[in-house]
């Protein structure tokens, strides 16, 4: 279809379609049998959102994060969140340089392109909140000095949904900063067989080492995503859905306007990934689960049915 769309923005993005395919292939290679997860991660990345991965250990969360960092050609940092982790351990801190007789700022792991905050719910709320400014405004302030992060700063946080002892559940304010909450899930049997077969002969994991995007290309793609058209009736549909979340009896915390903006942006990215220059209600629905799952106050296990009810309650525009 892109070859025929000569008069719209996607046509101008056509030369970069190979980059998207390359990104997709690299991530699929790193995380086998999870094409749908990879697609959503891509949407989140292109929408300039942050990702919360909630799943059991050993399902490839870190692998995925590393693969993303490598594929986008940026720097990768990892923070293993523990109860004794301090905010400065994430943002960085100032030390006194005896030679220069001045304080020097030592940047923390947030000064990277992709940050993996592993088991984020194990660290204290104080440290969790240190990430707030970084995630929302892509900057940190240390000793009253503001330090700007890279424009493509992307946080992948993970948390274990089973073990709750000694954890600090993320507050709603923090959850609302994430664009999506995803579960990787176990791979299929064939994929696991392939995984085992690929590991034979290799001493360690062989992450991809080839960057798929040159510097600045991710930002360019993100700008292009922002220009994907959203018709008024689709925006009205989004607003109606958002308002429905606030009226649903089983939702204790409805969708915020910021959440609605993120939902629209992710839908734009989703449409872009489908080579479509405009958003349809199908896009809105298909990414509703991970977007709403991150921010709606819903009882555990009820998210699926509640989101289904929300979709049923609002008629799509046709």
């Amino acid at each position, binding site marked *: *279809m892109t070859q*025929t*769309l000569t*008069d*719209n923005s996607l046509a101008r993005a056509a030369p970069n379609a190979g980059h998207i395919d390359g990104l997709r292939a690299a991530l699929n290679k790193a995380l086998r049998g999870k094409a749908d997860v990879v697609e959503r991660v891509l949407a989140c990345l292109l929408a300039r959102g942050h990702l919360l991965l909630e799943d059991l250990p050993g399902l490839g969360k870190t692998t995925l994060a590393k693969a993303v960092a490598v594929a986008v050609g940026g720097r990768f940092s990892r923070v293993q969140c523990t109860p004794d982790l301090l905010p400065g351990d994430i943002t960085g801190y100032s030390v006194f340089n005896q030679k220069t007789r001045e304080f020097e700022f030592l940047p923390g792991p947030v000064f990277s392109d992709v940050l993996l905050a592993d088991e984020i719910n194990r660290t204290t709320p104080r440290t969790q909140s240190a990430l707030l400014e970084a995630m929302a405004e892509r900057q940190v302030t240390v000793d009253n000095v503001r330090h700007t992060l890279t424009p493509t700063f992307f946080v992948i946080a993970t948390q274990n949904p089973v073990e709750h002892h000694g954890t600090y559940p993320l507050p709603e304010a923090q959850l609302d900063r994430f664009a999506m909450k995803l579960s990787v899930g176990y791979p299929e049997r064939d994929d696991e067989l392939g995984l085992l077969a690929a590991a034979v002969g290799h001493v360690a994991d062989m992450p991809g080492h080839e960057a798929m995007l040159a510097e600045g290309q991710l930002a360019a793609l993100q700008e292009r995503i922002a220009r994907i*058209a959203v*018709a008024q*009736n*689709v925006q009205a549909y989004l607003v109606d859905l958002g308002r429905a979340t606030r009226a649903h009896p089983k939702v204790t915390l409805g969708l915020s306007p910021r959440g609605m903006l993120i939902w629209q942006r992710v839908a734009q990215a989703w449409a872009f990934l489908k080579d*479509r*220059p*405009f*958003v*349809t*209600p*199908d896009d809105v*629905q298909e990414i509703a689960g991970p977007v709403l799952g991150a921010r709606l106050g819903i009882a555990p296990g009820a998210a699926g*049915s509640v989101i*289904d*009810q929300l*979709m*049923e*309650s*609002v*008629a*799509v*525009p*046709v």
Partner: protein
Amino acid sequence: MAPEFSSMVRRATFVLLALATVAVEIAASDGRAVLQSVGLAAAWVAVAACVGWFVPPPDDPRRKPPLWVLLLLLAMAAASFAVEPMRRDWTGDGHPLELQMVCGLRNVGLGLAACAGWVLCLRLACVVSLFLILFAAAMTNHPVVMVVLGLYTATGSVWLMLAYWAGLRSDFVAADKAVAIEVEAGGERVPWLGLSFLVLALGGAVALVVIGPKRAVLSLGEWLPTSGGTGEIDPFARYGIGDGPEETAGENAKAAGMVETDRVIEDNRKSLIDAVNDTYGPPHKPPKNQEKMIAAGQAKVIENHGKLPDNRRPSRDFDTARQGPQDAKRPGSQKARGLFEVQGRTPLHVRVVVYESYDAVEKKWIEARKPGDRLFDAEGGDWMKLGHFNDAGWYLGDERHKLKAADMKSNLVPTPAMVTRLRINKVDRPEYYEWDYEGVLALAGRNRTPPGVVVTTDCRTLDPRRLPEAAFGTSGGAPPALTEVPDAIRPAIERIAREWAGDEPRGWPQVSAILTKLRTQYTLDRNAAASADHPVPVLWFLTTSRRGPDYLFATAAAILLRSLDYPARVCLGYYASPDAYDPETAHTPVKSSDLHFWPEVRLRDRHWLVVEPTPGYDVLGPSLPLSERILNTLTTVAAWAWRHVIELSVLLFSLVAAWFYRRELIDALAVRIWVWFPGRTWRDQVRGAVAILERRGHWAGKARPRRQTVLSWLRAALAMPTHTDEDLDQLTRMAEWAAYAPDAPPPWSADEVLAVCHRVLGSWTLRRWQDANPTPALGA
């Protein structure tokens, strides 16, 4: 759990309905013993309890009640109307229609309470109970109703507490006991068809009221017997001022009306009743041409100052009793619409002149002789017994009419045929009457029957089809004049009579054959007349012209019947036509232009049977019971249907075929409209085509759920992977663009859009939709 799911709330609701039922029963007849009312209410409540016992609890109280609940409620509502005739028959007591309707609503409320397992029924039951208790409180101030009202209030408070408590239980229910309520896919369907009918019915009624003919508007009011005019008078109706079939006689009337009352207004005109008040004031001077009057006796005379309004029209608007907000209001005069007004069933034949002998030479009928002094007996209450009908067995019950003089030109007392007794208010002696002819009564000693005189008559009815042969007289027992046929025309008349009715058995079949021949093969033409030199006009009518005025119809019928040895005569009189019935006043005015000729056949008991050979005129039949009327109607309809069996068969077949193929027809029509008017823009064209596809999918049982876009719906409904049907695939993309794409030129030409839509509409027919395998909806 909704508050209403609590069984305690359901029981409280039933108690509310029971209390409301008691209150309504007492309010409906507050003069009755309270225990009797409570007993009746208890009976209805017991019926509802029995019904509730058999009603199974619903699986899901939130769902709509099944159809049988509606039927049950309708049956409960109808029970009130079904019980009423029995109640009237057995107890002699009854309810007016409006109270029957309230009782019907009460039964519906009890039925709803019996089906209170459904939330909708329970809520409606509460609303109905509230209406009923308020109705009862507004209707009466009976102390027991006040007590019941207090009990209702207390029970209502308990109901509220129970509902609140049940609500709390639902809020704080343990998580493991929580019930997940799944929302139905597809949502609630709007009943467009029902709504359309409702809008059409309401709009039609409003249009009828606003711009329709007045008669049609008034006929709407006749659905309620209490509004009068149907000929049915409900003895238990509660008439108010300005309502009902009668004018109201007032305590201090300001005008004379067509009422029968003990109070009479002082009037110097030539009224029938002498009610001059000469207690005070100047002495009464009788007019020069004083006519015979009836002394008012002990009647109360209402003094009249000034000119009395001249009311010569029956009207429910014109009442003589109103002393409402404008006490000084004086009713205006109303001109007469005719000679007299008839209240009661029509058609009605009122004799004026009776003819017996036919003069063939002069070509005219000769009036019958005046009867002797044979008068009649006075009964009580001003009633006069006229006809002495033996118990012949072919007569049915009496039927009452009121004939109200408006502007009579003579002293005629208008009476229908076969009158058995009559009454004029305060005319209590037979000497006040005289016979003009046999069956034609007049007021003795008067030149005119004054306006406002109401003649109440009871006339016997019969069904001529049931008359035995022995009922008809012969020339042997009748005066010769009634059977004579002029010799000059006898052979021709006898030949025609034999030809028409010779094969029929004697009696009504023969008479009916003559009448039917005249009614069906001859034409009423008031201007047709034989030339003056024609020797026998009736033969000209029968053999040559076959058209003529009613005079010739009556003459021909009478002569033909006489030739078959039936004593017959001809009458001139007034015909009260049903077409002239005025629903506003519920009367039929009879004008001087309603003069009509008709023949009569003498029965063996010397009474005269009115027959009608003139097309367009009918004879009053017996008042049949409802079942017989329905049977007659069905018989008539069946006969008509048999006569038009081919046309009806074709029509029925067409209707059945149209119904069977209704979807194909509607679809073809929609496609044709789309082809003719596809839309101005390419987006409209695509939307129109998609709408047709959607309708086909809906009819094929694959309606698009409200959460699905056209693309996802088509792919799911047709179980079709992408790119297997190029045209459909393209149309879905076009539909996406039409619905959600920005205002940029589409990647298709206008011709391509139309061509794709055409091809898809042509290939994805309704039949193909129906044949496609259903698959679960996307996302469901």
